[in-house]
């Protein structure tokens, strides 16, 4: 059921006579680099994915092809994935109390409530004074 290739370039390559694959070795496709994309000057670079490259220079070239070929890009960062340090997700309870720390937040200081109570108390004292005077 196999037919000859319709592509003249493939016919010229004489694939039948090419050697059997000995298989790729470990790291033959190099190392992963994380790519960070920036869509306007001054905006935060956002993680968009990885490319495999032998060094930063080629990682940038591949990142441009893979993540900068459409839409607006002003710059890209690449970082060797093995140079990124991170916490383990199973330890994420270390951050769990952060949203409760209202003392680190403007919302933790409801001064208006206290002022209103003070003003209400004042009015009450004034009312009692007037009552006693009459």
């Amino acid at each position, binding site marked *: *059921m*196999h*037919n000859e*290739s*319709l*592509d003249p*370039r*493939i016919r010229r*390559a004489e*694939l*039948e006579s*090419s*050697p*059997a*694959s000995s*298989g*790729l*070795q*470990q*790291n*033959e*496709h*190099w*190392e*992963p680099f*994380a790519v960070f994309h920036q869509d306007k000057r001054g905006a935060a670079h956002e*993680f968009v*994915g*990885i*490319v*495999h490259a*032998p*060094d930063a220079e*080629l990682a940038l070239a591949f990142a441009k*092809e*893979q993540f900068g*070929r*459409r839409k607006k890009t002003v710059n890209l960062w690449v970082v060797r*994935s*093995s140079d*990124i340090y*991170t916490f*383990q*997700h*199973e330890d994420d309870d270390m951050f769990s109390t952060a949203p409760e720390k209202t003392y680190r937040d403007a919302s933790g200081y409801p001064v208006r409530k206290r002022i209103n109570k003070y003003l209400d108390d004042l009015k009450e004292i004034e009312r009692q004074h007037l009552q006693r005077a009459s």
Partner: protein
Amino acid sequence: MYGNAYIEPDAKPAINGQVEDPEKLEIFEARIARGEKIEPDDWMPAEYRRQVLRMIEQHAHSEIIGALPEGTWITRAPTLKRKLALIAKVQDEVGHGHLLYSAAETLGKSREAMINDLINGKSKYSNIFNYPAKSWADIAVIGFLVDAGAIVNQLANAKGSYGPYCRALERICYEESFHLKQGYDAFVALAVGTPAQRAMLQDALNRWWFPPMMHFFGPPDTISVHTEKLMRWKVKMMSNEDMRQDFLEQYVPKIWELGMTLPDPALKKLEDGKWQYTQPDWDEFFRVINGDGPCNKERLAVRRYAEENGRWVREAMMKPEMKRMVPYA
């Protein structure tokens, strides 16, 4: 493209006799039921890891192999505009392959191991690319219908449970919408063209409908405990038959509207809204998947040739201190 609408089922137990921790399994299934995404360093059953990896890997191979029949036509595109579109599309497909290999790598298999499994014939890819693209009209039909089929499949899968796969699919679907539209544009150009152009398009449609397009989503699923589990884990999002029905509903009217025909006299929409069609030869489907299609040998030979002949460049740039690294996301 290209989606790999049909994922070869593999019902073998993952690791013989392995029993998952029932408590962890319950938390895992509850997270999926709540619509949460599973991320690379989350606990997951070995069977989930194996099935998701297998699906993403097959999809990645399909993108790379799928670029071959279309790439063939870049040098013979009929106009500069069509050539630009085809170059852009083929580059996108290879880019999709890379995005998907990256997502698969987060599950622990190296890119080299995946490529080895492809070129040694161990991994599968979408059957549709084992058929030849004989004329320019084939490129129009592939760009329109194969990409349309892929979108049906990928939009469903983008709602699945594995985070990195969903994120890759989001970007892929965005680019696919351009592929579909440029394919439709090329299809319409031939359909409203000269009698010779219409005849060329009709010939391509006839060849791509039966069997490749009707095989695209795979045979109707057998209801099994295995399928049911993959659905519950949101690995498989839609049954093969539902995807096929969705595809027929959306695209058959677009083909008929142009006065083109499809080589299936039984094809029609029934009163209950379902499409009736003639079952394709599923024996042929399995024969082609297992290597005996018109182009299987050529596709893998081209891929092997590229790896073998590019090796000296890659080796020259390898450094001894390079580390194997599972990407975080």
